[in-house]
């Protein structure tokens, strides 16, 4: 069955020469092939991912960062002030840094830590006065989460923690007048791990809808990832300043290393709740990716063409990346070394092709021969070699995410069932009767509201569970509608059962959209939250994510993104998988 596409994407397909809309629709993968938790887990970052979109905009528009003040002592206590020039807008970013807590270094803090972090930054929406900066340092300095409140001139707070594995070793090496050894940097891809971006109204920060429409950080997730990127600058400045404060012969971190390090991230199962809550986000993210992939698969790139050369170059970089970068755990993923081996076989195979077949043939061969992660890396790179189309498609992301859900109260139950609910055949046919199928529920813990997963019957607070059960909600809607005559208006049903408005609006808004729901049961005993966390992180733009267990997934973002002073250099927009080559080392 052809997937219905939004008008915006239809127009984009018409604008670009090459495959037509019908061909693209025919090539798009069905939900059962790409929207199951396991399939989602294998997906990789593309140029449609948020951090990549942001980076491209930064580079294209020439955003600049100026250090106003870096005042750090040997223990890492101090403050930093930066100014950012976006062109029409300017912002101030400040960060307070603190000495490491005594004892064994620990960066696994979670929400329970409150403000007890090594770094706490404030990104202002505009330029802050000296008095306002002083006021904000006084606000964040005591690290007392019970007294800290932001104001609406604050875009967000950026808590961060030093990398427990390498931060001290990096400072020690720089203070000793040398760059950290390769065995040190291999242990971690970052100096600072982010502790989230406290924003969009949280703690008094500006609500995202209140950001001016033409502000460069208005785009979904741009403010968040820009805040995280600033932590990367803080990390580099922090190690350099600490080393300088410790020794006269200290050196600064090399450009190669500054490029190698990204920003650490660790995400938990709360991301599954966010993914379930907003089906228009999920649908949009998957749609733009699959739309671009389908078109790329239809393209033919003759031997010697720029696209084929570019693909081989990216595959070589990817192989180098997976060879060099060593995750903390490979228990739940395809081992990096194996992926690197596979990619080298793929390169050999692509080199042998005569270039007369569309990429779909190559992609099918890879999918049949290798694991899903290798196949999805290839798919992500296919999207990358047709950048103009992907960049055009990316303009639909904010549009699709902003779709408002509603239902028509005057519509009859019969029409609702026939025109909308009937599109949920898979969801309505899932057997939820067995206790395994409804084993878990999500809830907030008394420990600062952290999302946890409980077991029904055994754990308390089931009646306050977070919304995660789209199958149950849809089946309950269908069951209740079955008790009403077909001609009954939906308004009467909702008046009798007000809680059904949510499911009715979800169904009516999403029914005809591609990839409308995750094809899986998140409550099931065997469901692994890490699958959806990994998908979310790929949408964010993290290249490699590696679950430490089934509910907690670390990774690194902005690996290979050029150091800020190099943003205006040649090939600046070509940084995918470049973190390893930036070191000048062979994997």
């Amino acid at each position, binding site marked *: 069955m052809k997937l219905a596409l939004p008008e915006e994407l239809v127009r984009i397909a018409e604008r670009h020469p090459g495959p037509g809309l019908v061909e693209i629709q025919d090539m798009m993968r069905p939900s059962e092939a790409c929207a199951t938790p396991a399939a989602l887990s294998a997906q990789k970052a593309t140029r449609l991912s948020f951090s990549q979109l942001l980076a491209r905009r930064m580079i294209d528009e020439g955003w600049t960062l100026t250090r106003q003040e870096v005042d750090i002592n040997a223990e890492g206590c101090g403050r930093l002030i930066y100014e950012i020039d976006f062109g029409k807008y300017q912002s101030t970013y400040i960060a307070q840094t603190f000495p490491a807590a005594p004892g064994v270094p620990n960066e696994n803090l979670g929400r329970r830590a409150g403000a007890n972090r090594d770094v706490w930054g404030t990104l202002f929406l505009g330029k802050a006065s000296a008095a306002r900066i002083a006021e904000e340092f006084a606000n964040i300095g005591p690290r007392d989460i019970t007294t800290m409140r932001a104001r609406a001139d604050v875009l967000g707070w950026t808590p961060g923690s030093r990398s427990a594995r390498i931060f001290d070793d990096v400072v020690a090496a720089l203070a000793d007048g040398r760059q950290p050894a390769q065995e040190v940097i291999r242990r971690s891809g970052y100096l600072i791990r982010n502790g989230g971006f406290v924003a969009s109204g949280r703690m008094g920060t500006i609500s995202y809808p209140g950001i001016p429409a033409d502000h460069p950080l208005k785009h979904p997730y741009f403010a968040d990832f820009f805040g995280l990127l600033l932590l990367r600058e803080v990390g580099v400045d922090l190690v350099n300043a600490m080393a300088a404060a410790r020794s006269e012969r200290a050196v600064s971190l090399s450009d190669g290393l500054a490029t190698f390090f990204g920003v650490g991230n660790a995400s938990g199962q709360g991301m599954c709740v966010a993914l379930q809550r907003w089906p228009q986000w999920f649908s949009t993210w998957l749609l733009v990716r699959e739309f671009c992939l389908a078109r790329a698969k239809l393209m033919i790139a003759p031997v010697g063409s720029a696209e084929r050369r570019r693909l081989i170059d990216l595959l070589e970089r990817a192989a180098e990346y997976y060879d060099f970068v060593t995750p903390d755990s490979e228990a739940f993923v395809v081992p990096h070394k194996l992926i690197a081996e596979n990619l080298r076989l793929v390169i050999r195979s692509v080199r042998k092709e005569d270039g007369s077949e569309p990429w779909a043939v190559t992609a099918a061969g890879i999918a049949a021969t290798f694991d899903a992660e290798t196949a999805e890396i290839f798919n992500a790179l296919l999207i990358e070699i047709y950048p103009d189309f992907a960049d055009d498609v990316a303009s639909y992301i904010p549009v699709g995410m902003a779709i408002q859900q509603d239902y028509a109260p005057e519509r009859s139950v019969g029409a609702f069932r026939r025109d909308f609910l009937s599109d949920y055949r898979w969801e309505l046919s899932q057997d939820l009767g067995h206790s395994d199928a409804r084993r878990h529920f999500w809830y907030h813990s008394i420990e600062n509201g952290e999302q946890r997963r409980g077991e029904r019957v055994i754990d308390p607070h089931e009646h306050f569970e977070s919304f995660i059960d789209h199958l149950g909600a849809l089946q309950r809607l269908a069951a209740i509608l079955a008790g009403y005559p077909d001609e009954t208006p939906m308004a009467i049903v*909702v008046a009798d059962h007000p809680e059904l408005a949510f499911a009715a609006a979800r169904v009516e808004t999403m029914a005809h959209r591609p990839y409308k729901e995750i094809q899986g049961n998140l409550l099931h005993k065997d469901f692994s939250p890490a699958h959806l966390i990994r998908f979310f992180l790929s949408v964010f733009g993290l290249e490699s994510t590696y679950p430490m267990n089934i*509910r907690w997934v670390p990774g690194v973002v902005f690996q290979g993104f050029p150091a800020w002073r190099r943003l205006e250099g040649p090939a600046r927009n070509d940084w995918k998988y470049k973190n390893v080559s930036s070191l000048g080392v062979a994997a």
Partner: protein
Amino acid sequence: MTSVMDVGVSEVSRVALWALRGLGMAFGVADRAAPLVSWAEAVEGGALRRLREISPQIDGPRSDPRRSQVSDATWRFDMSGRSLLELGPPAIDLLTMAARTGKVGRVDLLNTLDPIFLSGLARIAARRGIGLVALSTAPQLSLCGQQVSRLHAFAGPKGPLFSDDAVGGAPEFDEAVAAWESEPSPAGSDGARLSLLAYAPDQQPMSDLVEPARFDAERKFAFAQAHGVKVERRDLEHLYELEIRTWAPTSDRSRTQALA
């Protein structure tokens, strides 16, 4: 410590969803209601205070909806012990249904505790292209923080428009308003009468008749989103206390996420 705090509009709606669940509302109900709380705080002011004041009355187990159908397009809701946040959206749905099928819809609200949330409810109707008028026998309604006895919302070219008149665009609607004005207070109510009347999209008045500056609720809301709102500390703390009701106690089992 100051008693007034700067609060983000999104903070109010995010916490309100869980706070309302803490008061016993189902997820699907709280999901619709939470934006009404942030709208009312931003546009009317004092919404969190009112929520704190009525929390003891609306807290507790839910009974069947207290709704009766008076005629083809007229319903009556007994709001005793219930918030407009909970029963208001279904009432708007009934009015939408009536208006979109060419009728003048009417919902009588008895014993309303929290009319401060009415402008947000009217906005739902206006965003659907429906004209909605709230009529009250007492000047107890709030529109952009001003006391009014009539609250009118309808679809403008760039979004909902608000006024304090009751001017529809069709004789049927004028007749419905006149009929309401001539009615006595029903038995069993607190004496004050509050009704919502809705009319079809093609019967709305010319939007240039409205004086936008006086009741520019959308602009006021946009301003609050950009600049935050001032809220009494105890009102915000109460909202968070309600949210924390939904948090489960700490236990070893909780920490291990049921995987021990």
